[in-house]
């Protein structure tokens, strides 16, 4: 396809929702500009290239591969290795590839418990013979294969060498555009950088008025009607803004909903959940240690709150497996 000097671009989705593809569609008219400067040599969702064609490409044939989605199955992993080999620059695109995102919450479970629930215990399932999908199954007409479902969701960088990271669930269109401009201009920062985001936190982009915090009770956001001019965190609603990299424009707080942290940890922070927990602990207004413990202890589902988007990439990584 690409016999000219145009940039050779590839896009792929592993375990993801398709929102990162729509993030590309949200470029709207600019997608026509992308078409002028780049040849899309692989994009299963829209372009006519297949796995075997990628296999047939010379190594490093692809200039830039935007890889979205986490690593959930053997198929995801195989494609990650293949695309690394064939690409000069491999970009982890979006929260799933960067951090594991919401599908990464499955690291609180394992394959067996997920299969048991989905195929045996779920209220609408009718499965008296206890059928479970099998990687290989012999049907009357022949054999049928499906990929292996792993115990653990991994990020792209946990299984392959990644050049750049574009955070966000999904990355916002203006940020996607700035990344594409940088790629086309050859103006990329040092390897390993986060691109398409800011160097500050979501709080720096939020329009709500922030004051000194002194929290005596934390609320779930449906429990109170918050003052829409004031910082949600100041009002006792846990907001991941202080522990989240800026870049989205603080879109959730513009409709008075707290940030959940989809842009990942801010610069120089390794573990977003620990950072958010620390932010929470620092604003508690308690006279005694017991009272502080009670106020923080009342926060339900800490792991789903503090590690909503980044469990696989965090220091915790996953719940302990009995055996793997």
């Amino acid at each position, binding site marked *: 396809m690409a016999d000219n000097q145009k940039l050779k671009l590839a896009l792929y*989705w592993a*375990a*993801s*929702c*398709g*929102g990162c593809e*729509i*993030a590309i*569609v*949200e470029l709207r*008219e600019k*997608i026509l500009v992308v*078409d002028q400067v780049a040849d*899309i040599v692989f994009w*299963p*969702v*829209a372009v*006519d290239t*297949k796995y*075997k064609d990628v296999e047939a490409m010379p190594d490093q044939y692809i200039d830039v591969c935007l890889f979205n989605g986490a690593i*959930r199955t053997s198929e995801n992993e195989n494609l990650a290795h293949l695309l690394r080999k064939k690409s000069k620059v491999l970009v982890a695109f979006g929260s799933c590839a960067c951090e594991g*995102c919401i*599908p990464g*919450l*499955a690291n*609180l*479970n394992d394959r067996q418990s*997920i299969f048991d629930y*989905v*195929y045996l215990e*779920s*209220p*609408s*399932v*009718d499965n008296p013979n206890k*059928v*479970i*999908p099998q990687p290989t*199954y012999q*049907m*009357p*007409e*022949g054999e*049928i294969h*499906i*990929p292996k*479902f792993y115990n653990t969701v991994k990020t792209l960088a946990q299984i392959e060498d990644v050049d750049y990271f574009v955070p966000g*669930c999904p990355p916002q269109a203006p940020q996607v555009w700035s990344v594409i401009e940088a790629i086309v201009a050859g103006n990329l920062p040092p390897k390993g950088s986060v691109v398409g985001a800011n160097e500050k936190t979501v709080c720096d982009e939020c329009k709500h008025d922030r004051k000194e915090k002194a929290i005596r009770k934390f609320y*779930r*956001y449906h*429990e*109170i009607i918050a003052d829409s001019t004031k910082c949600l965190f100041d009002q006792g609603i846990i907001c991941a803004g202080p522990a989240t990299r800026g870049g989205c424009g603080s*879109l959730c707080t513009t*409709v*008075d*909903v707290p940030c959940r942290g989809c842009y990942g940890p801010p610069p120089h922070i390794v573990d977003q959940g620990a950072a958010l927990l620390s932010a929470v602990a620092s604003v508690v207004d308690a006279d005694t240690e017991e009272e502080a413990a009670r106020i923080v202890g009342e926060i*339900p*589902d800490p792991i*789903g709150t503090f590690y*909503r988007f980044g469990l696989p990439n965090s220091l915790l990584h996953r719940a302990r497996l009995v055996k793997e």
Partner: protein
Amino acid sequence: MRKITIDPVTRLEGHGRIDLFLNDAGDVANAYMVIPELRGFEKFAQGRRVEELTDITPRICGVCPEAHHLASTKACDAVYHVDPPPTAKKLRELFYSAFFVADHTVHFYILGGPDFVMGPDAPVADRNILGVIHKVGVEVGTRVITARGKAMDIIGMLGGRKIHPTFGIPGGVSKAINEEERQKIEATAGEEIEFGLFSLQLFKDIVLGNKEYLDMILSDAFTMPTYYMGMVDANNKVNFYDGKIRVVDPDGKEFVKYSPNEYLDVIAERVEPWTYLKFPYLKKVGWKGLETGKDSGVYQATPLSRLNVADGMATPKAQAEYEEMYKTLGGKPVHHLLATYWARLIELLYGAERLLELSTDPEITNPHVRNLPTEKPTEGVGIVEAPRGTLTHHYVTDEKGIVLKANLIVGTTNNYAPISIAVKKAAQAVIQKGKDITEGMLNRVEMAFRLYDPCFGCATHTLPGKMPLEVRIYDTNGNLKDVLKRNL
């Protein structure tokens, strides 16, 4: 027995595959639509704060997150036994109407439309959105991008984000709209109605005006009588956001009409060992395998299904189009699968008309958009119509609102059995012994699933929609005998 593998079927999220088996005579013996993917949302929903499922479950699908967000929010209303203020319900429906306009637009123009506008046998290089633009003009292409974009802007205005919006809260929505915002929505709604009418005219000119297409729509290969499912309002008119779920039998007679909390009386799911996706079916009819007709519990939940179950559309222009469709196709219910395209455009027009109605509702800028839950959370079911079918979210919580159990029956999942049957039927009709398998034949097989706009593939609502196919033919010993390729 020969095995033909269509892999990957790229409009199924890059993770779908069709395995066709040919018997020794060269006819299609069976077809398996294999879904090799699972993420386990229902399991890791356990332990979460239930209100957070409004943010977590949309990550099932970034193409229709609006549907999951609202089904989840409604399930949370039910869990907390809280009834949102009227304006909150209207804002949710307004938001959702804009979503239907955006979503149906891209399916018609980018995903499915090219098959008709360019023709199923057109050169592959032309059978995509760019080909469509060349044929119907650049101004139409711009109009499509604008129509979708403006509907997405309404989603962003209300939902905070255009992808994975976040304004639904148990008991209401997070924010009211002001008069300035209302005026913007009203102006857009007017344009979307014009766009809906224009799209229907285009469909009539290009598709219905062509005898070959009409014959194809009416052909046996694309005709499949099953039960149909869809949401209706109190007058049995189509509704996307709220109402009861009505199921009609293949003769069009009401089989059941149920409230969300009764869904388990109606639907059960079958597990097969060769695919990760489950097959829902009507419990009282029973699972009889991948079969159509009155004795099989297989049902469809599509735009055409919604029109088949309803007594009409609640807005005037869409109602006129509804009547015309049934008159043209010989009355209700319509079993011609490709009429789904027509139904989808009628729904697009309805969405635009509903957007206008709601944007001019005197209550729509009322600032009272939240009721605080006061009761203990227990259990709840929320249902909306996703563009690709009835979407059910069911949550059970402890007394603190922590999720104990979650069950989700997703739009496209409803259609898993019918898609499988449609693919097999189309393959049997077009692939016959002694005939070379052509690209146009394979495209007709694709058209059998493309008409469902499978959710996994809705992100194809983007650039040229050329689906690559590779057909591998094996002999009975599993040796590769031949490879047929298209778009490779």
